């Protein structure tokens, strides 16, 4: 099992993500700098971490989505390699058009930083197979631009295809239909604003995030 964490200038959850991946796989991930043009050979799982890549210049995730390593990430995603984007990573995946929609400024304009309840909408994906559909889990959020937007047609399509992985149980940021996490059509790319890597140890106050990594990495182990 070889995992990789993509590191952009301004990433700040890359080490938390590395801890989560190492805890589950027993092996430290490769930390891959944004200027690289290739991933390590036989990378089985890619994580795009939270943070403020390129200082959120232009739009959150916009510059990172055009960085050299993203071409390699996009190619790997196309081959079916699982890609998890958390927070800024989710923004990067939408900007790179690996996921539909966009993440706009929170409806209340506030930075939201607290643990929130999520409803698991799809428990069949490789990332969510350890949850039960309809289950409520507690995962921290910390973002300013988490207000998910897509046109009504796109929202209907992704809902119909079971591509809404998680929904906020209570309104958090104004997201369309309270969407907190979205899968691509093949089901191997997940973007989510909440931080599962911040809920993997009892000392974090909860371990609901751990099961996401166990599902995604266990399937492949």
């Amino acid at each position, binding site marked *: 099992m070889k995992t990789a964490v993509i590191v952009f200038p301004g990433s700040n959850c890359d080490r938390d993500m590395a801890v989560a991946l190492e805890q589950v796989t027993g092996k430290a991930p490769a930390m891959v700098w944004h200027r690289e043009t290739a991933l390590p050979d036989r990378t089985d799982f890619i994580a795009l971490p939270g943070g403020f890549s390129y200082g959120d210049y232009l739009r959150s995730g916009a510059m990172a989505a055009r960085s050299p390593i993203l071409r390699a990430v996009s190619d790997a995603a196309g081959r079916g390699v699982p890609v998890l984007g958390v927070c800024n990573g989710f923004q990067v995946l939408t900007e790179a058009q690996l996921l539909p929609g966009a993440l706009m400024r929170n*409806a209340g304009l506030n930075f939201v930083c607290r643990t929130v309840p999520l409803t698991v909408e799809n428990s069949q994906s490789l990332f969510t197979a350890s949850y039960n559909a309809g289950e409520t889990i507690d995962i921290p959020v910390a973002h300013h631009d988490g207000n998910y937007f897509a046109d009504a047609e796109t929202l209907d399509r992704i809902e119909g295809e079971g591509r809404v992985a998680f929904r906020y149980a209570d309104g958090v940021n104004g997201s369309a239909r309270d969407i907190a996490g979205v899968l691509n059509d093949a089901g191997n790319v997940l973007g989510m604003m909440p931080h599962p890597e911040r809920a993997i140890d009892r000392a974090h106050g909860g371990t609901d995030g751990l099961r996401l990594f166990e599902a995604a990495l266990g399937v492949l182990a």
Partner: protein
Amino acid sequence: MKVNVYVTLKPGVLDPQGKAIHHALEGLGFGGVSDVRAGRFIELDVADDTSDADLDAMCAKLLANTVIENYRIERP
């Protein structure tokens, strides 16, 4: 050649920043404002022979996110 690019939110896309600016204007006593939409203005200094197609591609590929934004290019 100086080219101006105006990036604006598509109609129907909620604009929390525009709303906050609107409220602030009302707070300052400007009552006659019915709506505010905030966008982005970008100045490009490009070679004189830059084609319209290239300018359009710059906007579509980076300067605007066409999921939520429209753009307008103004060249001299």
